[in-house]
């Protein structure tokens, strides 16, 4: 693996290899001194053109726990704010001698374009509506650890603004590649425009599905969606698609509840449900550091064993 741009780059074997590695690093992160020297002397730069707290912190933590040097390129107040082109920016960064560039951008495909301009490894940390592959990895790791048996045959519903979500696209692909049966549930205005790229059943009745599901994966609903005529109101969304207390009560007792955050409590998920015993939302965050360590290690590591 030279770069991580899309879940498509991995396939089932590649996903499982990274998840196995992620499990090992999860053990590392629980040590008293949660740090290994695997990437000593390597430099990882985060280049975030879009605001993000959790993903950026997660990548920087992952790099530091592997003993890599880290740099953060802040777009506001930088040469980018003065009009520097994307190509000039990444080539300037590379000239400083970096081994990996972690890129987030509001436009789809930017990480792909960056690979054509630099030799460093490129990790997609979210590009427009396209992909967010490390989110998919951490979701898959979270599920695998909870189920013990892998994802084969798991019935998963992803609910929310699928069409505009890079998380939904990456996570659907990863879950499906690992053998799960994924259904996408949303108002028609928020479902994918075409089936291509979505290995899932598109559309379904949430209330019919509830008792059959092993996992409910909720996406954040953004307030501004009302303005674009995608939704009549958030209240109506909650009524038809929200995981309310009543709906949660119809799930199997062991159904897991996931959310990539940040949550809109009371909109897509009731506060009590988010904090209930079936929720694995905080674990998702912890697993994020471990899978990002796995990705950086696989891209930059010398091949020495982790332990």
């Amino acid at each position, binding site marked *: 693996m030279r770069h991580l741009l899309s879940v498509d780059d991995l396939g089932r074997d590649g996903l499982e290899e990274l998840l196995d590695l992620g499990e090992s690093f999860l053990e590392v992160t629980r040590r008293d001194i949660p740090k290994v020297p695997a990437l000593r002397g390597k430099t990882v730069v985060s280049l975030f053109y879009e605001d993000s707290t959790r993903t950026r912190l997660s990548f920087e933590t992952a790099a530091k726990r592997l003993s890599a040097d880290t740099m953060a390129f802040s777009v506001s107040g930088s040469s980018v704010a003065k009009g520097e082109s994307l190509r000039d920016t990444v080539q300037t960064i590379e000239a400083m001698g970096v081994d990996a560039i972690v890129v987030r951008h509001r436009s*789809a495909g930017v990480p792909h374009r960056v690979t054509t301009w630099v030799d460093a490894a490129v990790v997609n940390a979210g590009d*427009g*509506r396209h992909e967010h592959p490390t989110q998919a990895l951490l979701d898959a790791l979270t599920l695998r650890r909870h189920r013990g048996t892998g994802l084969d045959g798991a019935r998963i519903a992803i609910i929310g603004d699928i069409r505009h979500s890079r998380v939904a696209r990456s996570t659907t692909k990863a879950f499906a590649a690992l053998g799960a049966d994924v259904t996408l549930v949303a108002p028609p205005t928020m479902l994918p425009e*075409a089936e291509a790229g979505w290995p899932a059943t598109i559309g379904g009745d949430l209330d019919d599905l509830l008792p059959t599901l092993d996992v409910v994966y909720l996406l954040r609903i953004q307030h501004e969606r009302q303005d674009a005529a995608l939704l009549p109101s958030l209240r109506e969304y909650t009524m038809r698609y929200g995981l309310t207390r009543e709906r949660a009560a119809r799930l199997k007792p062991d159904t897991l509840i996931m959310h990539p955050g940040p949550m809109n409590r009371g909109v897509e998920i009731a506060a009590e449900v988010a904090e209930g015993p079936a929720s694995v939302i905080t674990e998702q965050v912890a697993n994020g550091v471990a899978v990002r360590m796995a990705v950086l290690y696989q891209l930059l590591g010398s091949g020495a064993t982790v332990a």
Partner: protein
Amino acid sequence: MPDSLVVRGGRVLDGTGERTADVLVEDGVVTAVGAGLSGTRTLDAAGCVVTPGLVDLHTHLREPGHEEAETIETGARAASLGGFTAVVAMPNTDPALDDPAVVAAVLAAGAKSVCDVHVAGCITKARAGVELAPMGELHELGVRLFTDDGACVESAAVMRRALEYAGSLPGAVVAQHAEDPQLCAGGHMHEGEWSSRLGIPGRPAVAESSIVARDCLLAELTGTPVHFLHVSTAAAVATIADAKRRGLPVTAEAAPHHFTLTDADCATFDPLFKVHPPLRSATDVDAIRRGLADGTIDAIATDHAPHAAETKEKPFEEAPPGMLGLETALGLTLTELVEPGRLPLADAIALLSSRPAAIAGLADHGGPIAPGRPAHLCVIDPAATWTVDPARLASRARNTPYGGRTLTGRARHTVLAGEPVVVDGEAQR
């Protein structure tokens, strides 16, 4: 003996038929077509096809305002190398071509170039879609095609008024960039299989076909001719075919990229493949090819849209739309339509010369090649195989999506009013 030029030994192909003959040109005018002619200068055309100079209804020359991407001089040179002897310059310059003084300046600069430069005037002031541009004053300067290209005339009421008004100007044609801006809001590629895979917001086909349907009805209401620019969808082709069957005064053009590339080409996220209307599905590409073959589409027009290199190094969703076309249009038409048998050569030449000339009212262009006619000629070597090298294009910009593609057929010589402006594929000035 005064200067004279003979184009020797080619197959002369124009709207009147095909014959092997020499073409004698004196004082910028064809004076004889026949065997054994001689002149003071000879252009060899053995094994070649001699056609009327090609006519492009849709060229962005970028001057005034974006001379870093193209100028009238460089764009005209690119046109002549592509076999074109006339182009219609689109009005989305800065300032826009909505003012007689600016139009006159472009025409004056064009007159010194190696191509006959005509101008399309704006429909509305600053292409803003609100107030009518001074169509009558522009018509006095010779403008016949009016368009806000790059922008769709969104308001049905404004489009109706423009058509009513243009109806009083002899020969005027109102040309629409048919893409509903509301349906396309935020979109950057064709909405469909590939936008779904790539997560790039889409521009749906219905954004084009709905405006085409509306404007066919407005053409019927007003009787004023409507020309549809760069038609790209199967639904629009079907709607135009239906309107033509009903005898409505509508015409249409298609761009080479819409019959040679698909939305799958966007998978690299390279903005060289970004264009409005966007590259469509394979089904749409087939419909465009069929529309060209069955006469529904009247012209092949390049939508030559130069952009400075740095603007195409932006992210796909931030880069400007458009691609070069003048130097590749003929080769693509011959390679992708004529060679595989989708279109007879004579029809391809008509789509590139006589039919666009008729739409734009360019009586001097489009043939026939006959005594007394202005000598605007294109000598095509149909067997010449060449590879598109962006660095060697005459355009100031480099944004061709065809770099590295091998084409068969290209313009060998181009003659503008008797002057050989391209000889053996080399620009003469």
